[in-house]
C-alpha cells in the first residue's frame, strides 16, 4: 500500500498541471472544494496545511489525506476589430489537468502537531488549436506553468479553543511558453512567420515563503479562521529554442538566419507569485449542518511583469513595456454548506465568486482571465479508518472582452467554462 501511495504521489507530482485563467488554484482538498473553498474557519482535515495551518492542531492521531482535482477547461475566442477582426474564431485544445493534494499530519504530545503538505496553489496551461495558423500565434500558442508547494507545518493549541500554525512554503516550478516570431517582410509588405520560439525550464526552479494561520473556536458552534500566505518569487533558469520557419523566399530566409540565433540559447524568467490572506467564519449551530463563509484576498499586483531575458542575446530581450502585466489585488467570496445525513454520509454545496485580477490590457491568449462563478456539490463517506471526499465544481467564466486595450494588440472576447472534479481519500490511525 505504501509503495502504491508513493508511486501514485510521484505520478501526480510529475503530471501536476492546472488550468488557465487567473492561475491561482484553490482546490487543495475535496472537502474544502465541496464548500467552494470556504474552509479557513473549519480547517478540519489535513488539507488545512494549505487553507489554514492552525487547523491541524485540532486533528487527532496520524492522518493521511491524498487525492487530486481533475480540471477540464474549455475556452474559445471571438475576434474584434482592429485585430484579429470580427469573424475570427479560435478555440483551445481540450485539456485535462490534475493538481495534487497530499498531506500527512501527526501529533507530538498533547498540543503540538506537525505535518507535511504537497499541493499546487498555482498553475496554468493554455494551448490554442491550429497553432500555426492561430491568429494569436505571435502572442502565445502554448503556456504551461507547473507549480508545486511543499509545506512542512507546525501547529500549536494555545488553549482548548485557540490554535496557531505556521508552514515553511517551499515551491518548485517549471514554465514553458511558445509562440511564433514575426517579421515585416519588405519584399511583400506583409507579416511573415520567421521562427518558432519555445522558452522552457526544467521542473527544478524554486522559491520559498511561509504561511501562518490562527483558528479560534469562539463558542462551541462558532469558528473564526484567519490565514496568510506570503508571496513567493521564482527565478526560472531555462533555455530558449528558436526554430526557423521558411517564408518561401530564400533571400529573406537567409537574412533571418543571420539575425536570429537558431538552436538553443539560455533564457531566464521571473514570476512573483502573489501572497494571499483569508478570513473565514463557520458555524454548526443548526443541527446536522455546517455553514462557512470566507473572504479571500490575493495580492495579484505582485504579478506586474513577466521579465524574460536571453542572457547570451540581450538584443532579443522583449521591451520593458511588452513585459508589463496589468494585475490588481482582488477579493473573492466563498460560501458553502454541509448536511450530515448520518455519521458516515454528508452532502455539501457551495458557491464562489472569484474576481478577475487582470485588467483588459493583460487579457490575452496566454491568460484569458475573467470573473468566475463556481457552483459546487460534494459528498463524503466514512468507512472507519478510511474516508473519501468527492466534489465537483462547475466554474462559469463571465464573457471577457479586452475592450480594445490588450497590450499586444490582440482584441476580442473570450468565453471559458471549466469543470473541476476532485477526489481525496483520508486515512486515520
Amino acid at each position: 500500500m505504501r509503495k502504491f501511495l508513493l508511486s501514485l504521489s510521484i505520478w501526480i507530482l510529475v503530471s501536476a498541471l492546472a488550468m488557465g485563467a487567473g492561475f491561482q488554484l484553490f482546490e487543495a482538498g475535496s472537502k474544502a472544494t465541496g464548500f467552494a473553498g470556504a474552509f479557513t474557519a473549519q480547517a478540519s482535515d489535513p488539507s488545512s496545511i494549505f487553507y489554514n495551518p492552525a487547523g491541524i492542531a485540532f486533528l487527532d492521531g496520524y492522518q493521511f489525506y491524498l487525492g487530486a482535482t481533475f480540471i477540464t477547461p474549455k475556452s474559445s475566442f471571438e475576434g474584434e476589430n482592429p485585430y484579429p477582426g470580427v469573424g475570427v474564431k479560435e478555440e483551445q485544445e481540450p485539456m485535462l489537468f490534475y493538481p495534487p493534494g497530499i498531506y500527512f499530519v501527526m501529533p507530538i504530545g498533547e498540543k503540538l502537531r506537525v505535518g507535511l503538505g504537497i499541493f499546487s496553489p498555482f498553475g496554468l496551461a493554455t494551448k490554442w488549436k491550429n497553432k500555426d495558423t492561430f491568429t494569436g500565434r505571435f502572442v502565445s500558442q502554448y503556456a504551461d506553468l507547473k507549480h508545486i508547494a511543499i509545506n512542512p507545518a507546525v501547529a500549536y493549541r494555545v488553549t482548548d479553543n485557540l490554535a496557531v500554525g505556521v508552514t515553511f512554503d517551499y515551491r518548485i516550478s517549471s514554465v514553458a511558453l511558445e509562440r511564433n516570431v514575426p517579421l515585416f517582410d519588405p519584399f511583400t509588405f506583409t507579416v511573415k512567420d520567421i521562427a518558432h520560439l519555445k522558452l522552457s525550464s526544467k521542473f527544478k526552479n524554486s522559491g520559498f515563503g511561509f504561511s501562518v494561520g490562527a483558528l479560534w473556536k469562539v463558542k462551541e458552534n462558532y469558528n473564526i479562521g484567519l490565514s496568510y500566505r506570503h508571496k513567493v518569487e521564482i527565478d526560472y533558469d531555462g533555455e530558449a529554442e528558436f526554430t526557423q520557419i521558411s517564408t518561401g523566399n530564400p533571400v529573406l530566409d537567409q537574412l533571418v538566419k543571420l539575425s536570429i540565433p537558431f538552436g538553443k540559447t539560455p533564457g531566464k524568467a521571473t514570476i512573483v507569485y502573489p501572497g494571499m490572506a483569508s478570513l473565514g467564519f463557520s458555524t454548526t449551530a443548526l443541527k446536522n449542518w455546517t455553514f462557512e463563509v470566507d473572504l479571500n484576498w490575493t495580492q495579484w499586483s505582485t504579478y506586474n511583469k513577466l521579465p524574460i531575458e536571453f542572457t547570451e542575446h540581450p538584443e532579443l530581450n522583449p521591451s520593458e513595456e511588452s513585459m508589463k502585466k496589468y494585475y490588481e489585488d482582488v477579493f473573492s467570496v466563498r460560501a458553502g454548506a454541509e448536511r450530515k445525513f448520518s455519521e458516515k454520509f454528508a452532502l455539501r454545496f457551495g458557491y464562489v465568486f472569484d474576481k478577475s485580477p487582470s485588467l483588459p490590457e493583460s487579457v490575452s491568449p496566454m491568460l484569458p482571465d475573467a470573473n468566475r462563478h463556481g457552483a459546487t456539490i460534494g459528498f463524503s463517506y466514512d468507512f472507519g479508518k478510511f474516508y473519501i471526499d468527492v466534489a465537483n465544481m462547475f466554474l462559469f467564466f463571465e464573457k471577457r472582452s479586452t475592450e480594445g486595450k490588450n497590450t499586444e494588440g490582440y482584441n476580442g472576447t473570450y468565453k471559458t467554462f471549466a469543470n473541476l472534479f476532485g477526489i481525496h481519500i483520508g486515512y486515520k490511525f
Partner: protein
Amino acid sequence: MKRIFSIFLILIFSTFLFSAKDYKAEIKKYVALGDSISAGYQDGGLVIDYQNESFPKLISLQLGISDFQQPLISQPGIPPILVIKSLYPSIVIVPKPGMGVPLNLTLPRPYDNLAVPGANTYNLLSTVTDGGGMHDLILRGLGTQLQQCISLKPDLITLWIGNNDVLKAVLAGRVIDGVTLTPFSSFQSYYTQIITALKGNTSAKIVIANIPDVTSIPYVTALPIYLVDPLTRKPIIVGGNLVYLIGPKGQLSPGDYITLPASNYLAQGIGIPKSAGGTGIPLPDEVVLDKDEVSAIKARTQQFNDFLKSISTTNNIPILDVNSLLQKATKEGIVIGGVKFTTAFLTGGIFSLDGVHPSSLGHAILTNEFIKLINQTYDYEIPLLNLYDFLHKERKKTQSESFTLDFSELQKVILGESAKDLRIKDTK
C-alpha cells in the same frame, strides 16, 4: 401622475445619455482636405491601388459612404510609383516605367478627397492652379480645396495640412525661412482663415491632425551618418572612434542627419572619407540636415503644433496627435496582434518605399486613430477598421529575377545600418 412623468423624463434623458448617436444619419458627406498623405500618395506616386487605401477612403468605407470620389490615377501612377527592383546584391528601388493617367477626370462635381500632394497651408487656402501640376489634376479649375469643400456641404471634414510647411526644408536639405519653411505668423494666419471659413460656411464636424516631427520619418532616419561594417553590422571603429561621413560643413557629428537620396552619392564614394576608401568629396547640402537645420525645423514644427493645439481647444475641434503616435512608433513601436511595427525603413511596416509617406498599413492605423477620436468626441460608434488583411495580404511583389545567395548588403540595409549601394529615387 407626477411620478410617472418624472420616470418618463428620466427615460428620455437616459436615452440621450446612454445611446450613441447615429453616425450613418448624421454623416452622409465626408470631405478630406490636405496634402499627399491624405491623397493616399504612397511609394512616391499617386495611383489607384494606394488611393483606394488612403485613410480618407478607408474612413468613408467605415462610415458606410458608397459615393466617396477620388481623383484616381491608373497604374503606374503619377509620378510612377517606386518598386523594389532588388534587395540584393544592392538595394535598388526605382520608379516603374511609364506614367499613369487620370481615371475620374470627368466627375461633374468636386472630389470628396480634395487633398493635393505637395500642398501646404497656403495652397489649401488660396491655390487654384499650378500650371499643370497636382493642383490642376485634382482641383480641375473648380476653385481652391477650401472652396470646393464648402460647395460639397460636408457633414464631416478631416483637415490635415501643414506637413509641407516644414517638409520642404527636409526635402531640400536647407532651411530658408519663407521659402522652404513657412514663417509661423503666415501659418497661423492661413490656418485661422481656413478654420474660420469652414466653421462659417459649413455645419460639418471637423477633425484636424498635427505635424509629425521630421526625425520620426525614415527619409531622415534610415541612413546612419557613420560607416558600418557590412559583415558585423556594427559601426566601423578607427582609433576608438566612429568614421563619420563628410557633409558640406565638414565631418558630420551626432545630431546631424542625411536623407535617403544621400545613398546615391554614397554609392559613388561621395561623403566617405578618403582614409575609409571614399572620394573624400563632401555630400551636397541638399542631402544633409545639420544640427542647426534640424533644430530649426523641429522648433518650427513644435510652434505649429502648439498653435494647432490651441486652435483646436478654442474652436472645440478634436485634434489627432499624429506626432505623438509616430514618436511612440519610433520608440516603442505599435503592436498589432503581437507584431511590432516601427518607423524603420523597409522593415518597420508603417512607411512606404519613399520613406516619407505611410504604407497602406500606415493609412489603416491612421484610419482607426481618426475613428477613435471622432467616436470619442462626437459620441458615435463608427466601427474600427479590420487590420487583418493589412498585415497578411500581399501588397507588393518584388520585381526581381533570381537572387544570388549572398546577403551582407541586404542585411545591413534592412537593418538600416549602412548606405552603400542603396540607390533610391529622390522623392522630391
